[in-house]
């Protein structure tokens, strides 16, 4: 003993074993089934899209952090995959590259990297391309087309700065019946037709690459929550408040407003709730704040969907929640032990 050097260290000398890379890595793992499902549904185009966006995000992260290799924390990979999953499967690849670059460069690196970004980077990227390429981002293709593993959707390889080719003709050739080219949310909004819960759960509807199967996303989220890599309170708050709001509207006018289950399962709500709203850097840290934050996102999602010009409201609802996070944190400081009054 006496011959050995002993070291001085600050307490505590024991640790939970969780680390940023383990958390992030597990989030990535949990998204792989969703990616797999998406590729199975949409074939080569979806695969190319996911790979392109993720590679772009990783490359951008590496490029903008010359002094330290921050790829090891896996956070850029999450942003990339998540962004890919929220884009339409046949999104032109050059636009996807733009989205990936914007997500990391403007959404994250500009603010100082991991932990310093006020908004979820994937959402920033997605919001940017939504504004820049309004047509491409609402061009949907049918799932399970016969040739999906042998040929790409024509729009995938649009040349940069060119308008994507019209795909209506291509879709006709695929021989898919009754393809409307609209998401369930759009169909509800403009035609007042709601998709069945069964279709929404199993993902046999038109949507972004990774938004289709609500059930699969829920299962992946459950894995994260059980392994304690995700704060379960946020999804519960978001989904709960969204359901409540939708239910209130339905009570008010059952003929016009859809039932809460449709609201929960359709569009990007599920993936947004599980993977974006729970983004640690951009959600509150206080126990009360977490519920308020989730509640705001849930209510706003429904309101934007019902009254906004867009068919989908999750993205903006989450961005709003992100923006409010510092404020929520400030006003929901827990009452410090041994103090009588609530501290602000």
């Amino acid at each position, binding site marked *: 003993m006496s011959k050995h050097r002993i070291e001085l260290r600050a307490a505590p000398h024991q640790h939970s074993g969780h680390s940023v890379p383990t958390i992030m890595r597990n989030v990535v793992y949990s998204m792989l089934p969703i990616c797999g499902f998406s590729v199975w549904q949409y074939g080569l185009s979806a695969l190319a899209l996911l790979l392109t966006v993720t590679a772009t995000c990783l490359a951008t992260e590496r490029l903008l952090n010359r002094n330290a290799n921050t790829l090891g924390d896996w956070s850029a990979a999450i942003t990339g995959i998540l962004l890919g999953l929220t884009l339409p499967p046949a999104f032109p690849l050059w636009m996807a590259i733009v989205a990936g670059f914007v997500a990391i460069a403007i959404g994250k690196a500009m603010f100082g990297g991991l932990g310093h970004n006020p908004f979820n980077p994937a959402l920033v990227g997605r919001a940017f391309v939504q504004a820049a390429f309004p047509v491409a981002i609402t061009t949907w293709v049918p799932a399970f087309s016969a040739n999906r593993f042998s040929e790409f959707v024509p729009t995938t390889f649009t040349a940069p700065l060119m308008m994507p080719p019209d795909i209506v003709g291509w879709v006709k050739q695929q021989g898919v019946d009754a393809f409307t080219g609209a998401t369930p949310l759009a169909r509800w909004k403009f035609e007042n037709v709601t998709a069945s819960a069964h279709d929404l759960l199993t993902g046999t509807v038109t949507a972004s690459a990774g938004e289709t199967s609500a059930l699969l996303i829920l299962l992946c989220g459950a894995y994260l929550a059980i392994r304690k890599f995700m704060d379960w309170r946020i999804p519960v708050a978001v989904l709960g408040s969204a359901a409540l709001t939708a239910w209130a509207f339905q009570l008010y006018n059952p003929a016009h407003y859809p039932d809460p289950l449709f609201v929960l399962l359709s569009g990007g709500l599920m993936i947004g709730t599980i993977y974006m709203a729970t983004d640690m850097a951009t959600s509150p840290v206080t126990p009360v704040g977490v519920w308020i934050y989730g509640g705001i996102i849930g209510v706003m999602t429904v309101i934007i969907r019902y009254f906004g010009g867009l068919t989908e409201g999750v993205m903006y609802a989450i961005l709003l929640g992100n923006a409010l996070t510092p404020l929520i944190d400030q006003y929901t400081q827990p009452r*410090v032990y041994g103090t009588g009054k609530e501290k602000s």
Partner: protein
Amino acid sequence: MRLPFFNHTPTFDHGIHPVYHKETGHLPIRRFPFAPKLYVSLEQHIGKPAIAIVRVGQEVLRGELIAKPDGLFSLPIHAPATGIIEALEPMPSDNGEMEMCIVIRVYEADTQEVQVRYPHDLENMSGRELALVMQEVGVAGKGGATFPTHAKLIPPNGCTIDTIIVNGAECEPFLTCDHRIMVERAQDIMEGIKYARRVCGAPRAIIGVEDNKMDAVAALEAALPADGSVTVKVVETKYPQGAAETLITALLGREVPAGKRSSSIGVVMNNVMTLAYMGRLLPLGEGMTERIVTIAGPSVERPGNYIVPLGTPLRFLLEHVGARSTATEVILGGPMMGTTIPSVDVPITKGVCGVLAFGKKDAIPPQIYPCIHCGECVNACPKKLNPTQMGLLAAKREYDVMAEQFMLGECFECGCCSYVCPSHIPLVQQFRVAKYFLKNREKVT
């Protein structure tokens, strides 16, 4: 997470569930041999150091008074072994400073019998007189805070004490000495409680034990006095259940007001080992000469609970229990709040409840990431502080904001926040630095 309408084991909010490593909990307490030389520190308690009353070359007997207290908030020191005073010299201590020690060269043929006693007639004493006799025993808080026990028991002016809480939670991982003393010396604990109640005037005492030590609960319950003044309560196994504030909240549902002592809400808290030693030594008139220490950790070959003479140098201790060559860190106390020591020359003092030897891979991984706002630390802090914000402020050295807006002063450095932080930010260490800075700046200006 506490759900309403369920009958819960009493506990406090937040906190953590570390891996407990209580493997030594079933091993009986064993005696430790005398080291050839004992280094008896004069600063084994909080308060003024004791004053040595021996000279170099003098022969002392085990149990003999060798240093007297300097005022009411100080404690005497008794010779842990029979031998010759070899020197009075400064030695390294656990806090890194040099502390005055009485060095005793132990007679080889020494027995473990205590040879000098100072008995009193305790029966007809008032509480105050009893407190002064308690001081002569020299017991300091055994949980690690080392506050002189007699001084803690005297109720401050204007306070009435209604409950003594006896802390048998032992929430720190690895440590099991309190566990063993509850199993093996429950009767001593009851004696100690009796004397403590006489000094502070509390009508009742509650012993709080975590639910991972049910054999201790059984032993205590078998020894309870018949009048029902002492009860045993089982509390949830959770760190830091054994901290004063958390245990009081778990047992009584009261909160200690921020910045005040527990006596302000009528409670004094003592550790089980403190009271066990008080109960055993006080009637005999013996001084504190030894204590029970858990020696454990992944780098110790023969871990266990040992009765160690005070002043035993760690070098001797570790050699004796077979510290492996993998040990790179020696911790005094538990892994959550204990301190690593700079040198194995540090001696055992009254406040050392554990000696742990860790190797490199047992310690916290070194890579630090930026705070990712996961909120784990906020959900772990038993004081309901906001370590996230304080950590960000500490990085910017905004210590005043930490103190004024985030009540830095309430942090008792339990380490829960650092334990859970996935970014491995040394939060507690930052808070310690901030407090140190604020305290010493006040001194300067």
